[in-house]
């Protein structure tokens, strides 16, 4: 460094140098903070000492963002390269009109196509790309919420060298100063590589440094699927399912509606066989064998709850019964024989129109068995397809990662470049990655946020968000897309993995040129420019989807299977890990939308919890929110206990991703880090767990206070048989129609209405985030959720109910504003702040609202949301994500779902310009757009051709509470129709108590 003093006049030499390995105790961390506080600017988030970091995140901070913006200048700018908007090339940007850009986001190596909505250059929203097979216009919650990370004031903004602010140039110099030779001491540790361009860069790197090694590490990746394919076929292949053709689906602990790379598409396909309409007589049937309750289990027609370790024996038995040579006497076989024989019979009879799918949390052997079972059932080629691997480097990551740690311990690693992730935090605890890191002289880490690994590294490089950098990737079926940034980097300090690898290979081209050059190399036709423009315009590289390849089990399958070490059957409780439904492996822990997104089943927000069944909790003397200590292999962690109905007995489930030392929940006082119990040989479940009650308690914030079995169930249910026998079965309970003295209002123009198909709703929460993004909905923090002040305009109610046979069922009901014809809220507002309009919308006039909250008291649906505090005070950078077409609401004002009135008006203006009326499909509210299963339909109920009219004409259409209260809601529901196997009703999925 040339200057002798830093900005605060402290001599550089007086700043103690530190390496991460000293940061073991809280005092060390405090010292580290103090050090950071001496380095100006970048440490301001940490300096906010008056406020806990959690609070800081909840209010979405201010100071860091301000300083960050001064770095880059306040106005977002487009990237220097030519970018192509999705719909049309504008002659100029029209203020008030959004532009969409096709792009893609990768998670654990697999990409999903997106459209990024921008307003005056600011990305405000992520929607699905209808042309991309992994999205088809819809998205899951995580992918949508990822846009918030772009603006997050907690983002790391400066290069750090041993904790002290540095520059990219200094880092470059340091890297150039390394003597890498042939790369024997060089290791690259990355997330799962999904980008073909990055893969080709890495191949170049390996040519330059032939002895270097690239190791992938994704703590919640798809290792077992890769391992299963290697075991079954002796080569890596990608398994792609076509649920649209399957009549029977058996899930072996697979939450395929949410957790697989193709889940958004799978959910759509699966539900296409469950769209019950008036003349329907059949639907598909879903059997789920699962450990931790998931939304797939809730959707199941028949569900069997088992411990995760029991799934393998089930798969072995199934394979054995189907004639596959396999040792059936392995593991715990204490599952229901009746269930087994019924499922087996039904699979046999499906005639190749069934799917057996194994979950990513099940070991490779289960995946291999499932490949054999699907082949035996004749599913391959009709419902199950194999393609070339989507991932450029499909390897079992855990093995390579363990090898890396060994190399590090042996002192064979001189320079370690960690691209993304937080391996110090996410590495299996038995490997001792943190300690091994001490043996590496040069450690560089690229990440979006400052995390545990950053502070243990010599160099920390702030990473670019995917919305601000070029890249590419492939979807679950191989469909390639270019990640096109609609905006230049917000901060000029950030770098992408492409640039780090480029630095090592001496590559001087820009990332854009690299990506373009890669695809130019792949392209064999003429006119590459047109091809390229098409690819980035559509967000899909033309004809890039992989074709199915012929594939058959290896000849020595039985022998290979026999070589698999049988699972230990250990006593005690079983600990099941899972990727968190919201914050995934922890990488989204700074994302307040996802933190506040209720868990689909437990409805817990902002924390993880140790989930136990009621019987196990009673046996162990544990009650809700007790802090329990989990002990496994001599390692311990704490967790707040949560009694979860439907959870298998003698097992505890814990979500990964919480308890980060630099995460928002670091100040809990407990170690909530599930990685601290994870070992490399049992990544997803392990027996021998010991649980003790610490006597402390830790409050969890849930979006549902009443967690018992529900006494009432507003969701109308029926089986397909009942529906066929009596299509209007939902109306049987109806009382006589209420007669009014007054004539009903005639809606002559448009009359907006919504239909929600409860059969299709899988409770995935995608609509909640879609709405949050569209309508500028603030977060209220853990305290706010505890106080029941969530602001989301659409919520998903979860009911635990008993069906007629006494089995427990988990059911979902999305509830947004019903826009009642006889709106109880309108009657009681003393100032006419909530009024009906001529199209039947129940409007909220924010400016007129004085906050009596009477409307909310009188709303039987509880959909009105009140600004108890000024929730929208945010850092200036956080304002950038807001939709300029939706008012931001101040404190003291009521708000609620508007049916996305801004979208209705945009369509109205567009139609007016073209001198036509609004057509069906012109207006799609944000929730409906996000819904993977198209459960939500919206349109003009005066338009006889509209899809929503067809849905509302169904015999099983009903209004929530309408028969009790005569509110005449405009949002109506289609009853939840299931297709359970009568032979299994009342056996197995019920509560054991």
């Amino acid at each position, binding site marked *: 460094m040339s200057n002798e003093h830093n900005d605060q006049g402290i001599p550089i030499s007086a700043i103690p140098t530190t390496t991460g390995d000293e940061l073991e105790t809280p005092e060390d961390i405090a010292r580290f903070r103090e050090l950071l506080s001496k380095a100006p600017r970048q440490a301001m988030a940490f300096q906010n000492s008056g406020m806990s970091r959690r609070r800081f995140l909840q209010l979405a901070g201010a100071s860091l963002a301000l300083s960050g913006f001064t770095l880059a200048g306040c106005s977002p700018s487009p990237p220097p390269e030519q970018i192509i908007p999705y719909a049309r090339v504008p002659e100029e940007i029209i203020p008030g009109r959004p532009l969409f850009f096709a792009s893609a986001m990768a998670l654990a190596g697999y990409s999903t196509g997106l459209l990024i909505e921008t307003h005056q250059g600011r990305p405000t929203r992520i929607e699905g790309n209808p042309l991309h097979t992994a999205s088809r216009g819809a998205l899951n919650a995580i992918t949508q919420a990822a846009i918030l990370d772009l603006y997050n004031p907690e983002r790391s903004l400066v290069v750090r060298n041993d904790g002290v602010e540095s520059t990219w140039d200094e880092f470059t110099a340091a890297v150039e100063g390394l003597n890498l030779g042939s790369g024997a001491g060089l290791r690259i540790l990355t997330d799962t590589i999904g980008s073909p361009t990055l893969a080709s860069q890495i191949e170049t790197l390996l040519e330059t440094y032939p002895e270097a090694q690239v190791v992938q590490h994704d703590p919640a990746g798809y290792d077992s699927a890769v391992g299963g394919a290697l075991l079954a076929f002796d080569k890596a292949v990608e398994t792609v399912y076509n649920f649209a053709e399957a009549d029977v689906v058996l899930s072996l602990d697979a939450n395929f509606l949410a957790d697989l790379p193709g889940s958004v598409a799978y959910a759509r396909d699966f539900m296409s066989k469950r769209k019950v309409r008036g003349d329907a007589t059949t639907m598909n049937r879903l059997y789920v064998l699962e450990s931790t309750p998931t939304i797939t289990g809730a959707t199941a027609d028949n569900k069997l709850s088992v411990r995760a370790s029991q799934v393998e024996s089930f798969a072995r038995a199934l394979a054995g019964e189907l004639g596959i040579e396999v040792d059936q006497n392995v593991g715990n076989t204490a599952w229901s024989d009746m269930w087994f024989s019924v499922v087996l019979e039904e699979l046999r009879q499906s005639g190749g129109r069934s799917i057996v799918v194994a979950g990513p949390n099940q070991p490779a052997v289960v995946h291999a068995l499932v490949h054999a079972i699907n082949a035996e059932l004749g599913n391959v080629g009709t419902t199950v397809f194999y393609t070339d691997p989507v991932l450029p480097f499909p390897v079992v990551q855990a093995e390579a990662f363990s090898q890396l740690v060994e190399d590090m311990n042996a002192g064979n690693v001189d320079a370690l470049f960690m691209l993304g992730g937080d391996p110090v935090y996410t590495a299996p605890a038995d490997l001792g990655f943190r300690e091994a890191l001490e043996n590496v002289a040069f450690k560089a880490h690229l990440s979006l946020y400052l995390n545990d690994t950053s502070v243990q590294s010599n160099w920390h490089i702030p990473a670019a968000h995917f919305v601000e950098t070029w890249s590419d990737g492939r979807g679950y079926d191989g469909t390639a897309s270019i990640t096109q940034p609609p905006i230049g980097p917000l901060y000029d300090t950030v770098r992408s993995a492409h640039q780090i690898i480029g630095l090592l290979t001496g590559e001087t081209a820009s990332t854009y040129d690299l990506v373009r050059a890669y695809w130019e190399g792949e392209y064999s036709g003429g006119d590459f420019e047109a091809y390229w423009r098409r690819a980035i315009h559509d967000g899909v590289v033309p004809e890039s989807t992989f074709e199915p390849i012929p594939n058959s089990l290896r000849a020595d399958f039985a022998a290979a299977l026999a070589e698999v070490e049988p699972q230990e059957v250990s006593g005690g409780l079983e600990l099941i890990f899972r990727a968190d439904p919201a914050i995934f492996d922890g990488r989204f822990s700074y994302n307040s939308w996802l933190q506040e997104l209720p868990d689909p089943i437990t409805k817990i927000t902002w924390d993880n919890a140790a989930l136990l069944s009621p019987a196990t909790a009673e046996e162990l003397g544990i009650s809700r929110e007790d802090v329990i200590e989990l002990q496994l292999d001599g390692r311990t962690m704490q967790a707040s206990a949560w009694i979860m109905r439907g959870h298998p007995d003698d097992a505890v489930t814990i979500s990964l991703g919480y308890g980060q030392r630099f995460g928002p929940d670091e100040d809990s006082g407990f170690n909530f880090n599930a990685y601290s119990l994870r070992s490399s040989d049992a990544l997803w479940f392990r027996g021998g767990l010991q649980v003790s009650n610490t006597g402390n308690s830790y409050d969890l914030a849930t979006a*549902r*206070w*009443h967690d018992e079995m*529900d*006494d*009432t169930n*507003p969701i109308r249910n029926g089986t397909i048989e009942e529906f066929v026998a009596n299509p209007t079965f939902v109306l049987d309970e109806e009382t006589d129609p209420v007669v009014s003295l007054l004539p009903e209002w005639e809606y002559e123009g448009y009359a907006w209405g919504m239909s929600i198909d409860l059969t299709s709703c899988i409770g995935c929460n995608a609509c909640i985030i879609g709405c949050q993004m569209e309508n500028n909905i603030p977060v209220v923090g853990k305290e706010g959720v*505890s*106080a*029941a*002040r*969530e602001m989301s305009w659409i919520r998903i*109610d*979860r*009911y635990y109910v008993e069906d007629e046979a006494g089995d427990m069922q988990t059911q979902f*009901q999305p*509830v947004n504003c019903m826009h009642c014809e006889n709106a*109880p809220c309108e*009657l*009681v*507002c*003393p*100032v*006419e702040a909530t009024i009906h309009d001529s199209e039947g919308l129940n409007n909220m006039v924010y400016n*007129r*609202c*004085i*906050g*009596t*909250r*009477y409307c*909310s*008291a*009188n*709303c*039987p*649906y*509880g959909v*009105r*949301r*009140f*600004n*108890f*505090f*000024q929730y929208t005070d945010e850092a200036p950078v956080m304002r950038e994500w807001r939709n300029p077409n939706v008012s931001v609401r*101040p*404190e*003291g*004002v*009521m708000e609620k779902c508007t049916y996305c009135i801004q979208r209705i008006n945009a369509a109205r203006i567009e139609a007016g310009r073209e001198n036509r009326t609004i057509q069906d499909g012109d207006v799609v509210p944000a929730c409906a757009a996000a819904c993977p299963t198209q459960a939500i339909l919206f349109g003009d109920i005066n338009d006889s051709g509209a899809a929503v009219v067809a849905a509302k004409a169904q015999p099983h259409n009903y209004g929530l*509470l309408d028969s*009790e*209260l005569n509110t005449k809601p405009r949002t109506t529901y289609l009853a939840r129709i299931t297709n359970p196997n009568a032979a299994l009703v009342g056996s197995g999925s019920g509560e054991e108590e």
Partner: protein
Amino acid sequence: MAVINQDQPFEAPSDSSNPAREWRTWKEPGSAVDKVAGMIFGGTPLWWLIGFSISSLLLLLFVFTFLSVAIRGTGLWGISVPVVWGTAIVNLIFWIGIGHAGTFISAFLLLMRQTWRGAFSRFAEAMTLFALTVAGLFPLLHLGRIELAYYILPYPNTMILHTQWRSPLAWDMVAITTYGLVSLLFWYIDLVPDLATMRDKAEKRWVKLAFGLPAMGWRGDSRHWAALHKTTYILAAIATPLVISVHSIVGLDFAVALVPGWHHTIFPPFFVAGAIFSGLAMVIIFAALMRSGFGIQDLITDWHLDAAAKLMLVTGLIVVYGYFVETFAAWYASKEAEWLLVAERALGPYAPAYWAMIIFNGLVIQLLWFKRIRRNVTALILISLCVLIGMWLERFVIVPMSLSFPYLQSMWQQFNWGFWDIITVISPFGLFLTPMFLFMRFVPVVPISEMQQVAVEES
């Protein structure tokens, strides 16, 4: 002496052993003037200083609470969605109820020719005023945007926005302001002759001026008396229906809504009875304490307290009947949500509040059947305190508890009672008691002229 000619003169039973005459122990005309003048111009009693200091501190706390909630937001309270109404609304109903006894005693009993009311009427009316002041602040403080409260008024504006008259809150606005104005007039007009008496008794010039200005030149002229009585009776005739209407309308806030636990037709009369019930409890406590404080047992006698206690028993029994009807209606309507609410009230997380309410309002008052209890001042004060707590709890049971258990079970939510709610309950007593203490000290607390007039008639 001017007796109201057009009215039947009060029929005084000749038999002095008749217990109904027992209240009139004070027979010498003129001594009331000296007594009351002594209270005002004499020294300040120690109990008054202590009481005033405490209530002033509470008033400061109230100012702090009010400003905090107004500035920082209603989120300070434990309210949520769906429990959007909490302590502020509970307090509103409670304090309006307290006020009701005053009007009931002064206006209703005046029209009924119950002359014994005289001893209570002045301070009961003052209680009405101050309780209404407290009550009137809570609908404001309850608002999310207090600065825009005037939107509810039907004032002309260029945007042609108007009050939404179908809302019971708009009716509340009219009912409460009318009630407040009539109560103020009624209290003040009745006070004029006594202010004149004090003006005449005062020695210092500025004191004379202080009493003389509001006395508005009252000279005791018979025309003055005739006008006064006419006005009093007209105002009483206006105020009496207001006693019924105000709390009926507050009851309609709930009855009109379709919330389980609110949607009951019995609410208007049930609320009125409850209001008078709690108001009488407050009157009894004040009367008993004040008369020993100032030594005016001969102005407010045991007989008076006994009469008030009987009234309290009657209204209390109506309230208990209301509890029964509520529960019966929930069962009879066979609405699942209503019945679940009944179960949650009795067995749910707030069950202690519910059962305390039943005990305080339903069981404790049964003691009032016994004359010995009614004549025991300590017992009366304790019972009245129970009633006050019980009636506050009743409003708590009705407002946040009903909201906690709405139709959709997924929305069920416990009311998160906290620090700010507690001080919101406690601190308004400062706003109520501070002017009460000032009133007791500086304004004639018993209507001298009325007492004297009755005494003259009797002797």
